[in-house]
Each structure stands twice: as C-alpha cells, then as structure tokens.
C-alpha cells in the first residue's frame, strides 16, 4: 500500500457556481513511504490544489485521495491524517502564530492535548532536528526567512508527522535561506525517513528528489526520476518549465556539436563529461 494514493482525483473550485473552475483533472498518483518527490508545473497548473488534498485541506470533487489507507473524505480520519502530514507554505510570515519560537512549535502538540512533558520533549527534539534549538526563546520576528521556515518545519515535526508537504518553501528566501531549507528537508528525509512532497519552481531543487511529477494544465503529464524528466529539454520548455542549469549547458554544447553521451543533471555530471 502506498503512503499517499490519489485515484482519478478531480477538483473543481466553486462547483455549480458562476465562477466554477476546474483545477485538477483525473490525477492518479502514488507516493511511497519514505520517498522524496518533487512536483513541478507552471503557475495555475494545479500543483498546489493537488497538494492540499494530501492532508484533507481540500476534498476531491470526484475520485479519492488515500493517506496511509485512510480516505480523506472520511471525517473520522481527518485528524489522524493531519497529524501524519504537515504542511509548510511559501510565506513564512503567514504560518507563524506565537510570539516565542518554542510556543509556536508547541502549538500543534498542545492543541491535540499531549501531556506537557511530552510537549516539551517533542518541541526540543523538533527544534534540534532543524538545528534551531538555540533560538527557542527568540521572537520569530527576529529570525531570517530560512530560519522561520525551519521553525515551521519543526512545528510539523513536533506532531510526530510522518510526511512533510512543502509548497514553494524557498520562493521568498535568499540563497542562504534556500540552502538551509533544502538541506534540512533532505536530511529529514534521509535520516528520519520523513516522506517528502516538495513543490517548487527551481529545477535545481527538484533534481534532488527521488522522483518528479510534472503537472500541466490541470493534468499529471509526466513522472520519473530527475534524470528521466530532465532528459527531454524540449518537452519541459514547451510546458513553461526548464531544466537545471548544467543540463541546459550540456544541451547547448550538444547542439554545437560537442559529443556528450551521459545524462547531465548537475555540475558534477557536466564536469565529468567535459574534463575527461
């Protein structure tokens, strides 16, 4: 059984009203436990709508979404599902609610009525996991964007979440902040087996995933390893997307008659291909 499974999932906003809008159509997706997947697609392709189904923030208009075997439509399971899947959004300022970092991280566990000792333990462990323990008594307003996003991730971890769904978590961050968040996410996935769904417009970030899903105009149009997905530059461009810089450079060199036979998705690949 897959950890997250969407079967013929369709979502229509404002169904039956004048401003009805089809956002996602007939998507079938399976995400295994412990997997790191990235979702790519242009603005308005349906990626965020799809991701909001994974913890029941949105319910399918037709088809279904199963999390750990539980149907998100089944209200009995809503809280179990939300406890297993933590969401992190683009704007760090919109998801921090408390005046002190540790209160913010403790909000979730407190809300589900955990024992105070357990809350403390969870908060400490979560802050340590994202390397923010020394900031536990800080006010979130004094943190950088990357630090705020890591606090948001800690908030999910304190709930013992099994899976993180991150919707463009680095879009507003500077290069250092981007690296902090990427490194944290990737480490949590590798070391703790946290299933990760990562939505992004940065191809270099997507290249770190085990698998990439590509959305285009409400449909899931491709899925595969980063090497498989980034091999077809033409297809990616046609969909308004791109490939990592190293892949683009390799492609341009090939166009000019340089023989590169290896598949290239990062700088190391390119250096190996050219300098040997």
């Amino acid at each position, binding site marked *: 059984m897959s950890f997250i499974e969407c079967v013929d999932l369709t979502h229509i906003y404002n169904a039956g009203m004048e401003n009805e809008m089809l956002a996602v159509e007939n998507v079938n997706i399976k995400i295994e436990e412990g997997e790191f997947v990235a979702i790519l697609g*242009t603005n308005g392709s349906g990626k965020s709508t799809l991701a909001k189904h994974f913890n029941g923030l949105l319910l399918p208009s037709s088809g279904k979404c199963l999390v750990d075997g539980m149907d998100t439509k089944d209200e009995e399971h809503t809280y179990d599902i939300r406890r297993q899947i933590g969401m992190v959004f683009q704007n760090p300022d919109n998801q921090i609610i408390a005046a002190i970092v540790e209160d913010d991280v403790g909000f979730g566990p407190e809300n589900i009525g955990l024992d105070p000792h357990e809350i403390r333990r969870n908060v400490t462990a979560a802050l340590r996991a994202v390397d923010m323990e020394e900031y536990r008594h800080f006010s979130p307003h004094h943190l950088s964007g990357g630090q705020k996003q890591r606090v948001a991730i800690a908030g999910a971890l304190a709930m013992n979440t099994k899976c993180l769904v991150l919707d463009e978590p680095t879009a*507003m961050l*500077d*290069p*250092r902040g981007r690296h902090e968040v990427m490194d944290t996410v990737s480490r949590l996935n590798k070391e703790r087996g946290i299933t990760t769904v990562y939505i992004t*417009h940065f191809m270099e970030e997507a290249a770190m995933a085990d698998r990439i899903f590509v959305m285009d105009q409400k449909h899931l149009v491709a899925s595969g390893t980063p090497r498989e997905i980034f091999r077809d530059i033409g297809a990616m461009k046609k969909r308004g997307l*791109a490939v990592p810089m*190293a892949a683009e450079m390799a492609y341009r*060199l090939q166009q000019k008659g340089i023989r590169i036979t290896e598949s290239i998705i990062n700088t190391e690949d390119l250096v190996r291909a050219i*300098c040997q």
Partner: protein
Amino acid sequence: MSIELKNISYTYMPKTPFEHLALDDISITIPEGKITAIAGHTGSGKSTLIQHFNGLLKPNKGTILVDGVDIGKKNTEAKAARRKVGIVFQYPEYQLFEETIAKDIAFGPRNIGCSEDETQERVKQAMDFVNLDYDKYAHRSPFQLSGGQKRRAAIAGILALQPKYLVLDEPTAGLDPKGRESLMEKFRRLHKEKGTTIVLISHNMDNIASYADNVIILNKGKVTMEATPEEAFSQKELISQAGLELPEVKTIMNELAQNGLEIQNNAYTMDKAVEEIIEALRRKGKC
C-alpha cells in the same frame, strides 16, 4: 543624469530598545539609461534603501538627488523629481484594490492629475505592454486573474505613471520559469525601447548576470561592492560573505577550470559560457 545617494543613513525606531541601523553611510549612483542590480541577503537593507529613491522614507542623514534635484526639499521641483521614480514592491499583486483592472491601473495617472483621455490612453498602453488584452480584461475584477496575470496587472499600474526610473523589488519571485523569463524580457524591452532606467532588486544572481549593467551589493546596511557583473562575479569571497552566491553558470565554469579545462573563465551568462567551453575544447583538439 542619475539617482545619486550621498552619505545616507537610516535607523528604524530610533531612541527605543528596538533601534536598528538599517543603512549605514551609503553613497551610490544609479546611472540613467542602465540596468542596475542591487543584491544582498534578507535584512541587508535593500528594501529600506529603495524606499529612499522616491522619498517614501526620509534618511536620518544624507541627501538624495534625482536628476540633480534634492528630493528632500519641500517645493514643486522636488515633488516632480520624486515622481520620476516608480517602485514595484515585492508581491505587488497584494496591492491590487479596485473593482476592475482598468480602474486599478488608472488610479496612479489620475492621482498625478492626468486628464481622463490621457489616463485612458496610459491604461491601454500599460495593459498592452504587459500583454493583458484591453478588451478582454479591462472591466474584469483583478481578483479573478491568475497569479502571474495579477502580477502583470499590478506592474501595469506603475508603468502607467511612466516613470523615468523604474525600481523592481524581486519582480519574479514565485513565478514559474517561463513567467520569470517573459517578465524580465518585458523589462528589457522597456529599457531598450523607451530608455527607462531600471533598478533590479534580486537575490537571483543568474537573473542579475543576464540583465544587469552594474551590480551593487549590500551587506548589513553597507555597500560592499559597486561593480560590473564581470568584476563582481570574479570575487567569490566577497559575494559569499554577503550571504549571496555566484550565478550558477559561473559556478559551473569555476568547477570546470578547477578540473583542468583551460578556459578564460570570464563568462557568467549561458551563451558566453558555451562559447568559452567550445573554444577550450578546440584548443585541446577534442572537437
């Protein structure tokens, strides 16, 4: 002519426990007719700095000259000089407020006293420039647009003011690759066709590499570098101290050079990089 900042300092909440020196004795020149990029990590003072360009913030110390006029003065000349500078803030779509797109864009020109005919003409031009079809979109609510369209509608609102100096704060944040490229190409066209001076605030160094003539780098409220992109990107240490990164292209070229490819290593854009690599491979007799 230019925007010239002389010894600007700015402190947030002075004489309180939250006092924070955001800009520390900054002197820079934004030359007319160029694309100047301002880069720096979050909190380096970029956004505080640009709000001085048209008098939204007043410096605690120093003067700002727009085309030679001190904009801190209280006279009509200073007012006219402030209006030469248009600022598009980060996520400008959050500032859309009117019932229709045409009304939203018309707000600025009307506010500075354009006649109704002139206003409508400017709205049409601005919408045309950002590829929003006037007949189709003018009378729709801006809130029914997609994210990328909203961004363009908001930018049209500033373009309708026809600023001589256009300041863009992270204009492509949150857009997909195609959206990023097409928006940046529009600014390039504006710069080429109308001679608009552009100030681009960004931490996307590849964007800066592709578009900027000059680069100003801020770190902790101070200017650490004012240089051409080529000079700036050859100083890896300074860039990284400022919490930034080299453009991806430059990083790749540095790696190739370190691994024995004999390139000149001046390239920081894709086209030039490809040329340099091919030349190097030719010299080596590899192709």
